[in-house]
């Protein structure tokens, strides 16, 4: 539990120091999201590990009442949450005058509320899902469904009625401050009840995987299992990512539910036609970063999480299932298996992480334009930028998966790597309003742009991505094909991560500099 | 015919099978021309290596106790040994010498020995008659 606690504190510190004005929680400030996710993971792990390794019966056999066991678990968790919340909200004396308006404090508090809401509901979802991973996915989906679509609905309906923004904000805050705690408390109590009445049934605890397995069984019929090992492997690999499919399904389901709710509300008010035509009804995903889109924030988080989840499942799932050994003893080239594995991971990540959100946002934009099947230019640009990023993320997560025993740990390792890249890029380019400040790499980027070295810069970017891809594939293969890991390989992996982070952040700096120069010029 | 392998005996399993089949033949439990159990079901029943049974059968065949006909299995042969009478008698004398030495060790007198031999011969005869 300790590493998670530390991670939670670090995230809280980061949130504390990176708060800026004009930053609304729903814009999906990454650090806050990360904090919430970490809190969810910590809660899920406190139960999930025992559930999936079937050691919970061992625990329950101890001569302690279930109440006592429950509170012991929750107290550690609660302590971690409390410390993290205090770090986020409390301002030390020497921070006075840093420019924290009341708006910031409210946002920090809302982050705390969100953290507690998610965290308190996690034990229930973990008990329901049967694994730490499933608990995390369901637990994050719960408050998300409760807050984002309903809040969006409230905001838009009230805006239609011409109510001013301040009153809307107040209503939203009231709703959230009631709904979230109620949800969290009821989940917590339900989990407590369930724990006390827990029956250790033994087999088949993984709800999410079972559900995904049942619902995907007939689907990939076109990939028939026949005499060809290639298609059998592809089919097996695709089905290995069942948790990602569930997550994508949840996201899509919520999205369409929201659209349907909106349509119903607007339909009831008879105002649907004009708004749909103008495209002002539903906000679009714009390239303006984490802009005005209500769904944009969570959608971006989803687009970031899916590649990591897919990559992390690639090898670690097999290790958890126990089939990794079986595959290594089959008379088939390991290189071939690894190649197919990576290919399918990239493909699934592409479909679920890029194509799906693009389709979703296409639907949300001007419907007629979508029917005209010309996606907006902004969307294409975003897709173009996201593709190499997601490719790198999925392969980084696959490499992590080849090293770790469980999907959750691999995802954690990959997230740490990506997060360090982000953090380091921000740090090396100055935190904050970085569009208006420059350092070496950004200057290099601008210079390259103005000196007409645009092609060279693009080539450099492409080479660095290709280099990283090859590195991950090669290093990942080493972890995949063997059953043992020598100590130097751990250090080599750590070194690879550092090189990756340092190098990529400079590349990002160059590109950002060029973009900035383009924007200005 | 019931065959049983005793793993506590220093005698290899295949020899035990050979001896028990020979015993069965001598006591009339199985007659000439009757089929022996096939290798696979016997090895499964005794839960021993198939090759052990195969070895036993090939030993029996080389001793001329059984004969194999392709496709139909193994059959007990008519007791017609290919060895000449003198050779057979010599082999028997060796066995008899062994028995006499053993009797001396166990302090069985010559008279008792002869009586016991007679009893055992009668036993086999009766067994043969019962099986007829």
């Amino acid at each position, binding site marked *: 539990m300790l590493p998670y606690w530390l991670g939670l504190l670090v995230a809280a510190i980061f949130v504390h120091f990176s708060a800026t004005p004009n930053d609304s929680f729903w814009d999906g400030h990454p650090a806050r999201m990360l904090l919430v996710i970490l809190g969810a993971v910590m809660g899920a792990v406190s139960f999930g590990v025992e559930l999936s390794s079937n050691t919970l019966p061992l625990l329950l056999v101890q001569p302690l009442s279930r109440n006592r066991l429950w509170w012991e678990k929750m107290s550690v968790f609660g302590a971690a949450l409390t410390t993290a919340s205090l770090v986020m909200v409390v301002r030390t004396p020497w921070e006075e005058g840093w420019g924290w308006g009341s708006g910031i404090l409210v946002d920090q508090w809302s982050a705390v509320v969100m953290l507690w809401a998610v965290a308190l509901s996690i034990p229930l979802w973990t008990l329901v899902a049967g694994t730490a991973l499933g608990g995390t996915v369901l637990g994050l989906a719960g408050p998300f469904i409760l807050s984002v679509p309903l809040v969006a609905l409230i905001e838009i309906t009230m805006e239609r009625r011409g109510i001013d923004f301040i009153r809307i904000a107040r209503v939203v805050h009231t709703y959230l401050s009631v709904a979230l705690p109620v949800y969290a408390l009821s989940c917590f109590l339900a989990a407590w009840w369930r724990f006390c009445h827990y029956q250790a049934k033994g*087999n*088949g605890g*993984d709800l999410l*995987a*079972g559900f995904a*397995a*049942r619902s*995907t*069984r007939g689907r990939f019929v076109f990939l028939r*299992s*026949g*005499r*060809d*090992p290639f298609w*059998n492997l592809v089919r*097996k690999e695709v*089905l290995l990512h*069942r948790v990602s499919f569930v997550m994508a399904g949840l996201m899509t389901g919520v999205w369409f539910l929201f659209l349907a709710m909106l349509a119903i509300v607007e339909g009831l008010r008879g105002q649907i036609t004009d708004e749909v035509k103008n495209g002002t009804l539903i906000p679009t995903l714009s390239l303006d970063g984490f802009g005005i889109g209500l769904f944009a924030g969570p959608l971006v988080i989803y687009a970031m999480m899916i590649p990591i989840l897919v990559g992390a499942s690639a090898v670690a799932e097999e290790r958890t*299932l*126990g*089939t990794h*050994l*079986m595959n*290594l*003893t*089959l*008379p*088939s*080239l*390991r290189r071939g298996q690894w190649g197919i594995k990576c290919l399918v991971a990239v493909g699934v990540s592409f479909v679920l992480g890029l194509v799906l959100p693009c389709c979703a946002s296409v639907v949300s934009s001007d419907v007629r334009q979508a029917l005209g099947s010309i996606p907006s230019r902004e969307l294409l640009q975003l897709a173009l930028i996201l593709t190499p990023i997601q490719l790198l993320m999925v392969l980084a997560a696959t490499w992590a998966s080849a090293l770790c025993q469980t999907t959750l740990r691999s995802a954690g390792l990959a997230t740490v790597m990506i997060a360090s890249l982000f953090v380091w890029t921000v740090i090396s380019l100055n935190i904050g309003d970085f569009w208006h400040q420059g350092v070496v790499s950004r200057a290099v980027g601008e210079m390259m742009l103005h000196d007409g070295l645009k092609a060279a810069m693009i080539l450099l970017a492409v080479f660095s991505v290709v280099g990283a891809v090859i590195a991950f594939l090669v290093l990942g293969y080493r972890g995949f094909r*063997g*059953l*043992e890991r020598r100590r130097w390989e751990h250090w080599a992996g750590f070194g690879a991560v550092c090189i990756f982070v340092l190098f990529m952040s400079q590349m990002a700096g160059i590109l950002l500099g060029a973009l900035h120069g383009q924007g200005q010029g | 015919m019931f065959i049983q*392998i005793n*793993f*506590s*005996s*220093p*005698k*290899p*399993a295949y020899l035990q099978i050979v001896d028990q089949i020979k015993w069965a033949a001598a006591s009339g439990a199985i007659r000439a021309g009757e089929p022996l159990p096939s290798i*696979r079901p016997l*090895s*499964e029943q*005794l*839960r*021993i*290596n*198939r*090759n*052990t049974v*195969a070895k036993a059968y090939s030993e029996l065949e080389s001793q001329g106790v059984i004969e194999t006909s392709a496709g139909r299995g193994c059959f007990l042969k008519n007791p017609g040994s290919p060895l000449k009478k003198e050779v057979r008698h010599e082999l028997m004398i060796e066995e008899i010498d062994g028995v006499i030495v053993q009797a001396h*060790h166990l302090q069985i007198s010559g008279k008792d020995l002869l009586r016991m031999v007679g009893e055992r011969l009668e036993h086999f005869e009766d067994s043969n008659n019962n099986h007829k």
Partner: protein
Amino acid sequence: MKSTDAVIEIRGLHKSYGATDAVNGLDLMVRPGRCYGFFGRNGAGKTTTIKCLLNLLKPNQGTVRVFGRDPSKQEVEVKSRLAYVPDQVAFYPWMTVNETLRYLESFRRKWNRDIENDLLERFDLDASKLTTALSKGQRTQLALISAVCPEPELLVLDEPTSGLDPIVRREFIETVIGAYQEADPERRTILVSTHLIREFEGLIDEFTIINNGREVVSMEADTARRQFQRVRARFVHAPPDLAFASPRSMRREGREVEMVLHEAAPELLERLRGYPLESFDVESLSLEEIFVSSLR
């Protein structure tokens, strides 16, 4: 039998995990058509050796040859001629029994559908059942079917019957004898690593007992039964000094003596019989007793 004909040949195998030596100079040779037993205590190095055979681990020192080939260099060639039944059997939970068999079949050149149907019927396995719905014994049976159907030349069994009920264990052994060995006895080799030595007693032709990464005993089963004997004797008078017999272990109770001999020879037994005895019993040790006696 030339050593080049050996199915498995291990010479001077060394494998260590960090500071501990799992395997410390092991020699092993398995000839075709034999059933080879590989016995040892937990942690003695059995699984490590088997993993080196399958190229799951790289030996630090020594040579490993399967079918005369190096498993780390000609991996696919070697693996296509053998089948492995691990101790922890695992399948994909979304596949049915039938789908699992089809999946595994696609990697093999040969697959005997008749044996598959025969065994499925014999084990009473429903082919459309999900693998998660199978009991442990049924999963092992499925693993065995998938190992026997491709008709491999070598069957490697690692703790195959641990945790199974007696009926399943019997069926397992009967299948190995019947379905596997029957078809081509000269070229069907079995390497079985197990604790349930008693069950495989009849199957084993040759065995090696390994301890602390080294072989302790290595001989044919028939020879072992001649050499490892337990003598129970009741002497008329007080028992004499029996040190000449160099027993492995001896138990005295009044006039009764029980000895375990590791190198019993007929002359030795004759000499023992020479003493005035009330009773004299000689019995071969079972393989399991040989195991216990060699390692205690």
